[in-house]
């Protein structure tokens, strides 16, 4: 006897609905975000002028650097550079 009939296949397929798109996208973009974050942090630590500009307006500074100001990235940077 088969382990699978059409009903069982349907039941099993229903067990794996897609994860929310935003979650998947965030996980997919994580390496790039990390690269951006690491690079920005290093530059901010080495360059006081850049750090001042970054802290003054994180979103704008990120855009200038070609990095999308993802809210989690902004939050992480803000936490990192809190006085």
């Amino acid at each position: 006897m088969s382990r699978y009939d059409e009903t069982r296949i349907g039941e099993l397929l229903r067990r794996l609905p897609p994860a929310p798109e935003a979650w998947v996208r965030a996980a997919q973009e994580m390496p790039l975000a990390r690269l951006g974050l690491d690079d920005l942090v290093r530059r901010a630590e080495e360059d006081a002028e850049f750090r001042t500009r970054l802290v003054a307006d994180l979103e704008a500074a990120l855009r200038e650097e070609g990095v999308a100001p993802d809210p989690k990235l902004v939050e992480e940077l803000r936490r990192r550079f809190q006085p």
Partner: protein
Amino acid sequence: MGPLPRSAGVRFDTRTAISPEPNDAALVARCRAGDHAAWHELVERFSRYVYAISVQAFRLPHHDAEDVFQEVFARAYQQLDKLRDDEAIRPWLGQLTRRLCIDRLRAGAREAPAEEVEPAGIDETISELDEAFAVREALAAAPEHCREVIDRFFCRDESYATIGAALDLPSGTIASRISRCLAGMRKFLEGKKPAASAV
């Protein structure tokens, strides 16, 4: 919902379905080499599985499930070098998800032992999800028109009418297509070895 109509068969591509391309080991190797496209593919391939473990097996609320989801992939990205068998990426992710879900539940239950915070029937649920993952992989063997209607109907819970409107096809055609595709999947799965329990 009524029974699906019976109709003629659908040819499955057995080459691609036995091992989705790229296979898990190749995908992991590419991720380790810093290939961002491979990382995208890896997240796409396992996102449903990780999500299902947290919300179905552990019944985490949405915000906790999201944190676990991101943490699983963050740790996976950081620790890919520690994976001893690249083919074992799915059970590894499953274990990681399970551990992080337990941590999350314990944090809310103040230092309770893992077995006290785990919902009943967790092993059975995860075993069922492993099987579901194997069935989902069989979809890779299906023609594109099958993959789309099957995913929309079963995984996205869309009605025949909704799918028909999206694809500009009559509802009856959608129903018969689903029926043919399921029959093809059944035939294909009958020729496969049972999926190994992974977690």
